[in-house]
């Protein structure tokens, strides 16, 4: 029984030590807790070899931090808990291909958009008669069921809309010549083209207004101007363009 009580005491002490170690030591460079959900390539994922976070959003946030002069402490968590954590100020910021919506604005603040996630038209490489959304009248258009892309496709006069369970099925059908065009999110489209560069291309401009932004806990609103200034600078010096080319492939 002696041994048993020694173990008990050891456990108790361990419990105390654990409960005592609360973080938040101020360092010279302000540490900013940034949440993400590293299961959404090519925006955020874990590198297989280095096991570090990587992807478009991760590199962008690191660049923003460098410009704005703070230090990033990454927290990798699921998407829903991440949004809940931002609303509860468990994290200072979040970046994870988060679309800026009015609903979300009620519980968190957003930076300026850093990438337009609106809809864009994709066609086969050899297609010449479609150079944008306005040429789609009477064409066969594919889209993912239930997405903004499908809604936009329905709006086009005389077009025949085919819906699919996922983007890649629509793109596959397009590549096989079953349909004339696909309407899908810009970043998703670029990511698909990055891995399948041979047969497809995007045409025209992004034509709806949906944007990805950095989300902020409402109490950390003082960070927003710094981050916005950094995003502006990174757009101007071409860093964001380079990141798009690196992670999402060019047009």
């Amino acid at each position: 029984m002696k041994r048993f009580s020694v173990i008990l005491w050891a456990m108790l002490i361990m419990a105390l030590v654990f409960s005592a170690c609360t973080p938040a030591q101020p360092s010279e460079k302000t540490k900013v807790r940034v949440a993400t959900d590293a299961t959404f390539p090519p925006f955020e994922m874990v590198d297989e070899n280095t096991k570090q976070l990587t992807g478009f959003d991760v590199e962008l946030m690191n660049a923003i931090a460098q410009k704005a002069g703070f230090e990033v402490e990454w927290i990798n968590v699921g998407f829903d808990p991440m949004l809940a954590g931002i609303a509860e100020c468990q994290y200072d910021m979040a970046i994870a291909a988060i679309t800026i919506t009015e609903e979300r604005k009620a519980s968190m603040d957003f930076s300026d958009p850093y990438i337009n996630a609106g809809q864009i038209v994709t066609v086969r490489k050899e297609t010449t008669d479609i150079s944008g959304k306005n040429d789609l009248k009477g064409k066969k258009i594919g889209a993912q069921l239930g997405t903004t892309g499908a809604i936009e496709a329905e709006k086009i006069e005389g077009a025949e809309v085919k819906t699919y369970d996922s983007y890649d099925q629509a793109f596959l059908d397009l590549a096989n010549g079953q349909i004339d065009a696909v309407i899908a999110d810009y970043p998703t489209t670029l990511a698909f083209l990055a891995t399948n560069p041979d047969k497809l291309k995007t045409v025209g401009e992004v034509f709806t207004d949906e944007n990805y932004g950095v989300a902020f806990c409402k109490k950390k609103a003082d960070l927003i101007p710094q981050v916005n200034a950094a995003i502006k600078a990174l757009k101007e010096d071409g860093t964001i363009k380079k990141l798009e080319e690196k992670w999402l492939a060019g047009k």
Partner: protein
Amino acid sequence: MSTSTPAEVDPHLPTIRGNENVFRWDAGWLLVLAASALLAILVLVVGNPFDRIFRFVLDGLRVTVMVTLVTFGLVLVVGIIGALGRLTHIAPLRGLATLYVEVVRGIPLLVQLYFWYYAFPSIVRDLGTQWNVESMKNFVANPYVMAIAGLTLCYGAYMTEVYRAGIQSIPKGQMEAARSLGMTYFQAMRYIILPQAIRVILPPVGNEFITLLKDSSLVSAVAVADLTRRGREFQAITPLPLHIYLMIGLMYLIMTLLSARVVAMIEARMSKER
């Protein structure tokens, strides 16, 4: 552990020590061996993508083991405090312990983990604002601490019931005899009741450990990079659900089979010391 010194064992009792090996070959060990062999074949012989998955999730395995062991150590303490509370004659303490067990047992572990990681810190921050305490205002939860706290409180409730049942299985006369010898309540508990109860509760305690090991996968929901979370991350970069969950399932299986064997060995040793 059943008696404080070996000298107290009655020398006239027949002993089976030495005649029987605690480590016995049986079907359980064969299962451990077979599962480990399967893992080794997948990683070393079949290789890609199993070796890639294995390397990727390895540090998640470390986290899972660490979280499970630390939690279990704490659970053993919480359980005994809870059980003494359940059995005490002091009504408020007994009520408190009962309330704890009933409330915690009735709420899913996942919900509890979410509570400790998301809701609890926001309560602390709100109180900090109210009382104007700077350190509480900026309270930020450490995912590991909160995950371990959540698991400990949940499993502490189950362990409370295990201990309670064990202690109650010892005849009342034992306590009465000890008390009439002049022992205090706690002395009687420590030297007479608990040593006997431990033998009774060992199998269910082992069972709790194995369940805890598996349920620790839920901490992946609160930002802890455990085995399960690592698997999710690998699936995001390379969608290979079959390979990934086969690998992770096998790793959990080996750990649980191994723990079951260790518990069986401890049980065998305990039963000999009788």
